[in-house]
């Protein structure tokens, strides 16, 4: 039975109506948050950040930095990946990572390289993270992190090659956060993957290539969470001053990207240092972040502290990301190209499954899926 769209019509119209309405004084609350940010000194924000906040300002909170000039020649690099998850119903246990890479040089000597690299993992040491006597299968969230590590290692390869051939003004972009983050994952798994992730970041630093993670339509609330800790907010919010705990916080339900939606095109916000999980990273490998109006949206850019602290490198990243978004119609073109290289379609999945099945049959091994999967495939009536 397919989805009954007829039954959904009324609910979809209701959804549209709900979003069109001003939800709980959204605009007014947003204006309040902006006024609070503009009126707060960096030292006051930094003081509340020390109480366990997820971010700490590195510049005056109201800072607005216009887009710096673009280097006359620059090199944009990106890596992205996708996976075929292990399937416990399949005749054999394996997974696939497909890493896409793009390196595009702009300027008087334009050139581009796109590549994809699929790898099949099926050995026991590939399928499980093992530390001492603890073991966890690489699937779901763990595999997502494993892929993120592989992407960063690929990016480090690109950075080293760019360095070796003297590519002009290199910049490396990753898709998403510059941190291995997921709460639903065991510490021993994350620690092992984090070590590999940090090795890759260190290779980028050694190659003198600034790295940033680009997040389209970010849902983070790190800066708003900081504002909610301010005494000036706590004194006026009925929930946060404890007078009416059942009421929502006046700054609840907002996102940082809305807070910074008043940035002019090409402008970035102040830089903040990520805390929380990032606090476990050595200082030079911690992400700093800012929000950036790239034309079509306000994106979040997470910059490796090593690069964020250097005025020339952070200006290069800022200018290159804005230009890349202009070329890419709102999203960095180099990331889009890496993504295109990484995509694994449903058809690809079927073909790999079939090839694996044939390889098993060729060795006289059982090549049948589980009874459940067989029933789904047959769709008998």
């Amino acid at each position, binding site marked *: 039975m397919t989805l009954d769209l007829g039954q959904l019509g009324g609910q979809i119209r209701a959804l549209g109506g709900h979003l069109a309405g001003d939800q709980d004084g959204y605009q007014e609350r947003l204006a309040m948050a902006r006024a609070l940010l503009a009126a707060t000194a960096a030292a006051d924000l930094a003081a509340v950040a020390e109480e366990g906040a997820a971010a700490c300002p590195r510049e005056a909170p109201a800072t607005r930095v216009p887009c710096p000039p673009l280097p006359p020649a620059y090199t944009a690099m990106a890596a992205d990946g996708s996976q075929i998850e292990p399937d416990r119903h399949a005749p054999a246990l394996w997974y696939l990572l497909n890493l896409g890479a793009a390196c595009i040089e702009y300027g008087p000597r334009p050139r581009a390289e796109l590549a994809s690299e699929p790898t099949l993992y099926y050995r026991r040491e590939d399928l499980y993270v093992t530390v001492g006597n603890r073991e966890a299968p690489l699937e779901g969230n763990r595999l997502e992190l494993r892929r993120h590590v592989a992407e960063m290692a690929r990016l480090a390869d690109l950075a080293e090659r760019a360095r070796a051939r003297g590519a002009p003004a290199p910049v490396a972009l990753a898709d998403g956060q510059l941190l291995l983050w997921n709460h639903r994952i065991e510490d021993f798994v994350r620690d092992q993957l984090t070590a590999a992730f940090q090795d890759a970041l260190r290779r980028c630093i050694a190659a003198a290539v600034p790295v940033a993670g680009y997040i389209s339509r970010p849902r983070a609330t790190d800066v708003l969470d900081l504002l909610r800790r301010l005494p000036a907010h706590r004194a006026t919010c009925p929930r946060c001053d404890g007078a009416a705990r059942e009421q929502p916080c006046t700054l609840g339900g907002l996102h940082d990207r809305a807070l910074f939606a008043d940035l002019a095109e090409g402008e970035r916000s102040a830089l903040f240092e990520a805390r929380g999980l990032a606090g476990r990273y050595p200082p030079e490998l911690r992400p700093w972040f800012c929000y950036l109006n790239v034309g079509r949206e306000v994106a979040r850019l997470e910059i490796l502290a090593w690069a964020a602290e250097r005025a020339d490198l952070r200006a290069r990243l800022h200018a290159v990301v804005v230009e890349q978004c202009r070329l890419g119609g709102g999203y960095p073109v180099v990331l889009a*190209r890496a993504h295109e290289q990484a995509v694994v379609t449903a058809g690809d999945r079927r073909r790999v499954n079939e090839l694996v099945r044939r390889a098993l049959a060729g060795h006289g091994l059982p090549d049948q899926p589980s009874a459940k999967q067989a029933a789904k495939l047959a769709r008998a009536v």
Partner: protein
Amino acid sequence: MVSDDAAPERIGELIEVTSHALVAQSVRLHQAPPLGSFVRAAGPSGPVYAVVCEVRTTSLEAGGRPIARGYADVIDEQIYQANPDLELVLRTEFQALCVGYEAADGPRQHLPPQPPPLHYSVYACSPAEVRRFVARLDYLRALLAAGPPLADELTAANLRQAAAAFGAARDEFLVRAGRALALLLHDDYDRLAALLRRLRVEAPA
């Protein structure tokens, strides 16, 4: 005669084959063989000859849609300079109608028993190959039947291309081609006259 010294150049790779038509991806973006020119597809059972009937440049990704990228002074070739990745995400492909194949005893001017395999190479025919193939002009009937209005454009383009392979003997070939067309189109004077004008040959009185 036009020089035949040059080694055959691999210009494309077959990405779609049927009994009567081939589609090849150009080795280089925007460098397809001219409309109407002869190409040769390699195959295990001998070369297949075809006439280029359509050239198109599209996104390499299925469903990818090219968008306008020019601004200010960045137009035409500068767009490619400013977007070096474009060369890798666009492709030029050309379609060619099969007009014959190489049999043990020489070229045949009818459809090959099998199309060449996918992913095999496509070469531009050398002037010598063209002269050898057009020693007979039976294939013109297939071109003229390709369907109006493209058929006549294609036939004229093909004969102009073939004539170029004859160098100084160009006019001699065109007269022979004109006679062949007159036989094929004896019941349609207007069409014949329009076709011959495209060859820049006077229509017979």
